[in-house]
């Protein structure tokens, strides 16, 4: 297949994407405007209750991204700078959770974090606490569950950025007597910023639309936009409102993504 065939081989996939991706999404977003007014958007963005859900979602996404960065950097760094054998093992332990069902992991966290869960039992047994800590059905539980799901998406780009770095720079700095902290702050950190940025953007964007983890680990107490949309469609049957919420979520998601894309393009092109 040479370049002569042009766009032809793409046609079947494009038909699928138009019919079962673009069409259903655009059609559904249209429901919010069927009344001919912007009333449903006024409700989504005007009422305290729903504004709070958006704020909650944003706040959780920021926290998840920050924690993923804090944990993902050392991990990506270690895998990138260790021997090939250890790196393979390190990758397996990052990829195995990535490809394990989110449901399995969420269930496991419920077992670990519950009132009578493994952690609370253990902490009481060793005498560190007397009453079980509230780890589930709250912000903490959702945060732990989401970080677990999204951490691999942070590790992989950081790993890539550290690998691309020229080891001669580090060797030169060492030869000139720089301490390892100084090497980290002056060489590794600035030169791996693109990886940090790419990982943070993908984790943040994916966090915004999260459903399974907040639905199960939030226990109805931590409301995120995706959970609200599901309730509006399946329980309240309020399609126009679900449609308006979806439109706002989509604009936020694509907006953050597009903004990040355009800023990296400016930096990356020499």
């Amino acid at each position, binding site marked *: *297949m*040479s370049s002569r065939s*042009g*766009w032809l*081989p*793409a046609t*079947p*996939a*494009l038909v*699928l*994407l138009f019919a*079962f*991706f*673009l*069409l*259903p*999404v*655009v*059609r*559904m977003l249209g429901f919010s405007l069927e009344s001919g007014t912007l009333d449903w958007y006024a409700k989504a963005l005007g009422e305290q209750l729903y504004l709070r859900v958006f704020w909650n979602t944003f706040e959780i996404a920021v926290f998840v991204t920050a924690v993923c960065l804090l*944990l993902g950097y*050392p*991990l990506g*760094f*270690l895998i990138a700078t260790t021997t090939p054998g250890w790196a393979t093992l*390190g990758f397996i*332990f990052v*990829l*195995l*959770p990535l490809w*394990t*069902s*989110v*449901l*399995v992991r969420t*269930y*496991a966290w*419920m*077992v*670990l974090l519950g009132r009578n869960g*493994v952690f609370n039992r253990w902490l009481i047994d060793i005498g560190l606490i007397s009453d079980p800590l509230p780890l589930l059905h709250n912000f903490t539980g959702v945060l732990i569950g989401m970080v*677990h799901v999204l*951490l691999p998406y942070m590790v*992989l780009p950081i790993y*890539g950025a550290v690998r691309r770095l020229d080891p001669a720079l580090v060797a030169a700095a060492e030869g000139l007597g720089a301490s390892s*902290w100084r090497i980290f702050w002056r060489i590794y950190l600035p030169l791996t910023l693109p990886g940090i940025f790419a990982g943070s953007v993908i984790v943040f*964007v994916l966090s915004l639309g999260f*459903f*399974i983890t907040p639905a*199960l680990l939030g226990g109805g107490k931590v409301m995120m936009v995706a959970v609200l*949309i*599901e309730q509006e*469609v399946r329980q309240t049957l309020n*399609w126009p409102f*679900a*449609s308006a919420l*979806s439109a706002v*979520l989509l604009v936020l*998601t694509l907006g953050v*993504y597009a903004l990040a894309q355009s800023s990296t393009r400016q930096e990356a092109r020499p």
Partner: protein
Amino acid sequence: MSRGLLIAVCTAIYIFLMLPLVVVFPISLSSAPYMQFPPPGFSTQWYDRYLEDPQWIDATLRSLYVGAATAVLALALGVPLAFALARGRFVGRGLVDRLALAPLIVPTIILSVGLYGLFAKLKLIGEWYGLVVAHTVLALPFVVLVMVAGLRDFDRALEQAAEGLGASRWRTLLRVTLPLLRPSLVSAGLLAFISSFDELVVALFLAGPNMTLPKKMFDNILMEIDPTIAAVSVIQILLVSIVLVLIGRFGRGLQGSAR
């Protein structure tokens, strides 16, 4: 000194990553009638319960064939798309590229609700092939990413040699190009399979009364924390591990596809 600190910190992070996968093993073999940790004794009752419950088996089989059909369809559509993206020069290629990867970025809940509305109108709710079509949309980006990476590293001199020796374009494709791309094809197909096998949100809306394995698990988790789920979880972890081993053995490295 700081290297030791780094290794200590990373060990803790690895424990965090692996703990949820490990904890379901002892629970699945517990003799207690309800969730209890550590388990008071050994028993295979939760595996028996899984194997004897036609609902669980039915859901598992449905997820397996939906996943297999998704892998086939995603390869059939995604491989030509990847060829067009990697080698074609045409107007709007950048746009096609973005569209192909968009299902990764657009929140799945939005696609699910949109398809739910459309499929309700087309009377496709509860039909397994409706689910296959929806899962193929979600699997397509994985196939495209893996195949485009494979095509980028491809040595085109081999194709030119075949054509120079008189092979037709189709013969070159079938006898040279595709066999050389086999590792990428294996990875792409298996990733498409896993992405469908694990998928919940779309299935929640489109599966109707017909359970898939994730949907059955979701309902059970909402209702009760029954160790049967732990047994199902172990089976799922083992299945995914086997698939990852297959990718490692016959496929193109996952690191390559993640770049």
